[in-house]
């Protein structure tokens, strides 16, 4: 037996939720003005969907090309090969290594979801649900939960920046014969139970579905032929179990964080490993450029104040240095010690310098005293 009605009475989200809630197995057909769609359910989860007017190849092509899993050229070549060989396209894509089977299944899942999301927009049409014990679907297909579908459809329709609203569905309230409640009483799903939809008598298991009068119903053989080679298989978990996926992600995340941390700690440390291979890293050159900068700043301070600053921060306050100048390229702080006419600047990494005002004619009065090796007298130019 079947459940049927039109979309004026029940909207599709309500119907899908009902089937999911009652964990039904069977096929739901929806006939709209332009197309007919058949959805296969296994224990309340969607395992396949097919439209009469859009071939599975077209939908699959759209997904594979838009995700970058396959180029349009490759897909056209595969389609041509399929025509020539008569092989199932899905098998051919995997066998000829256009893409791997897990990738193909994931693409098929997206294609199914897209088709269903389009279907959710339908406001007019008739539906009919055929219950059964088993349905056919692609091997390894990860079933789509109805709530997952509705949530994603809601997200997709929501414009960017729009507040998130609950999924646009009403909960269908069905009578519970056991409780003897009225038609508005809620009914809890019974996991694992084979209870029929509440407003239909339970169908005989062996009886094939009958098309209602005046309705166009896609029979099971038609669905199978539209997705070539669909066969009944058991569900398979994904190729990589979740804990291992998390392990990979954690390792990758830790490595990325470590790399980004060098930006804050000391970017120059990236080059340190090269020093261990006999290649001199630029750290000491960076320090020389930094020491030159600090030297000029310190001597400017001396020019203004007649002494060297007690700390490097004094030079920063004057605008002569910036905050990072108190650290070398590897992020190690510099030590600065001022004397009367000299200062000592030292890096924790290696090396340092003692600088002073001697040799500077603007700062050191003694520089301008005549030395023994200076020329005694200049040439006097009469002109």
């Amino acid at each position: 037996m079947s459940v049927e009605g039109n979309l004026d009475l029940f909207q599709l989200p309500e119907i899908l939720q009902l089937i999911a809630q009652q964990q039904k197995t069977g096929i739901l057909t929806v006939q709209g003005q332009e197309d007919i769609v058949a959805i296969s359910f296994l224990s309340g989860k969607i395992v396949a969907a097919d439209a009469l007017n859009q071939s599975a190849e077209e939908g699959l092509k759209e997904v594979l090309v838009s995700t970058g899993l396959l180029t349009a050229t490759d897909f056209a070549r595969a389609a041509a090969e399929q025509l020539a060989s008569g092989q199932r396209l899905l098998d051919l894509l995997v066998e000829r290594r256009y893409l791997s089977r897990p990738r193909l299944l994931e693409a098929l899942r997206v294609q199914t979801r897209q088709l269903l999301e389009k279907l959710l927009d339908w406001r007019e049409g008739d539906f009919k649900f055929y219950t059964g014990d088993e349905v056919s679907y692609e091997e390894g297909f990860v079933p789509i939960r109805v709530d997952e579908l509705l949530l994603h459809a809601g997200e997709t329709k929501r414009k960017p920046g729009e507040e998130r609203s609950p999924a646009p569905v009403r909960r269908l309230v069905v009578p519970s014969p056991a409780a003897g409640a009225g038609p508005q009483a809620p009914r809890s799903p019974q996991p694992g139970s084979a209870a029929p939809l509440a407003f239909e008598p339970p169908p005989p298991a062996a009886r094939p579905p009958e098309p209602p009068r005046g309705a166009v119903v896609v029979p099971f053989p038609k669905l199978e032929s539209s997705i070539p080679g669909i066969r009944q298989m058991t569900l398979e978990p994904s190729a990589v179990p979740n804990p291992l996926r998390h392990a990979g992600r954690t390792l990758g995340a830790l490595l990325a964080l470590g790399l980004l941390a060098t930006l804050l700690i000391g970017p120059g440390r990236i080059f340190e490993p090269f020093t261990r291979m006999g290649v001199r890293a630029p750290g000491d050159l960076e320090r020389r450029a930094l020491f030159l900068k600090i030297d000029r700043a310190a001597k400017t301070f001396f020019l203004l104040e007649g002494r060297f600053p007690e700390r490097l921060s004094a030079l920063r306050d004057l605008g002569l240095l910036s905050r990072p100048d108190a650290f070398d390229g590897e992020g190690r702080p510099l030590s600065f010690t001022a004397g009367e006419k000299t200062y000592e600047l030292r890096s924790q990494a290696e090396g340092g310098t003692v600088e002073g005002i001697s040799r500077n004619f603007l700062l050191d009065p003694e520089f301008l005293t005549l030395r023994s090796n200076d020329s005694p007298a200049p040439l006097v130019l009469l002109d």
Partner: protein
Amino acid sequence: MLAFAGPTLAASAAAAQSAGARTRLDLTPPVLQMLHQMQDQAVQLLVQTDPDRAAARVSDLLESVHQVGLARLPDLARAARVRAVDRARNEDFDLANQALAAAELLDPERPANSFAAASVSRLEGRYLASWGWTLRGFVRTFRWPFGRYLLLEGALLWFLWVLLVAAGLFVAVQMATKGGALVKDLAARLGGRLPAAVAFALSLVLLLWPLALPSGFAWLILYWSILLWGYGSASERVVLICAWLLLGAVPVLLAQQRQRLDVALSQPAMALGSLEGGELYGDLFNDLGLLRELLPESVAVRQLVADVHRRLGQWDLARANYQAVVKEEPGNSAVLIDLGAYYFFRRDYAQAIEQFKAAAEVDPGSAVAQYDLSQAYRESYRFEEADLADQRARGIDQQRVESWVQGSERVVAVGGGILRAGEIRRELAARLRATSSATREGTLDRFAPIALALGPLILAVVLHSLRRRRGYTEAPLDLKLGSRAGHRWLRVFLPGFPSAEVGDGGRGFFALLAPLVLASIPFASRLGYRIPWGYEPGPGAGWIVALVGLAAYFAARYRWDLAHEV
């Protein structure tokens, strides 16, 4: 400046100084007196609060510096900038602007003047003007030879850093997307004999052991890139190969940069650059003396030193050096002319004519030689020969001769020493190479780049050829095809991740590179070589560029994700 241990030029210079070598350039009493006068003028300028007197001191200083053939006083300009901002902080904006004007006169067109002006404008509350000055400061950086040089060398270092980190992040993303499959395969290999939990733990140990090595983090990235090679697509393998080639190229590029910068950051090169830019800074005479000490046999240095003596008016010292140069290079017309000028001023016109004639013979196209010759003939009352030489000079370059006549220049000196700055830098570099090769240890550094580039590739290919028979577990497409609400945001904010899931190596790498470039801009000063601006531009501009750029980048990713949603 003293510097670090190692075979550097600065270390050699330091050794020369510490050995008590005679480093300072010889200065005669009149020159010392002039410098003393400048010292006094500088002090007066810095303590001066009267704007007219301060302006007069600036004029005096500039006149003094022009007397020695130079034009800039960068030390005093730095002090003036500090004074300007200090006065602006005390809300004395008139004095602040006058100090800024003084800084611009003392060291024109320097970026630091603009940065200081930006600070003053900001303190005045003129924020738009402040941004204008900051922008102008960065533009001026490209007209400042030393700043531009350090900026470009730093940019190379920054670029290498960004590429290396982007390559590291690429490996991290590969691990995040394909690591699960890698761990699964490793555990499966070990699982035959061990319990699952032990196999898993052992797999993690096998993945993380490089951390125990020195610089383990870097080795870990390299190791993972080799392990993940088999799981990558063709384009991802191309990116990994490029990353390994980059690893090989980095030491070579760093070594070449080291050779350039070791010279550029040395005191003698600093002195050369200052002479080229007309800068008189406090340590100039010391650094020139150091140059002479480092390259005592260099004819080019001798000519440069002779020119400096001539500019300072120390003609006897100049002549001794010129004569030494002529002895080595008899065909050096510039030195012959300068030597002729010396005799001319000594009123030894016969000697002067001899030198000028020799210069004209060596370089018949020299208008200076002919002009100076005409002047020497004229002083010797040999007017006919003077007129002939004058005609020849005008025939070569009428315009310049007119300018000399109008400038009442009795003789023109050439100053060819500074024109040999490039040659001197090459000699400094050669001196450095000689020092470096003398102290080089082992030969590993020669083979390290090749090992870094080819080693991982060979290992990866060998490992892949051994592993491929067993097959690789397929990595999932969790994020690329994820339909949950958070998946979109993860696709947007985890660049490179969706591309890694579908194996688009090029797009994945550039998706990581772009935000990394933007995020590193505020830290660029720590990534490259610090530029001695003389007044800091502040971090604001870098942060604004980075934040606006990152916002635009992630907005573009969001739009792209919406447009390509599946």
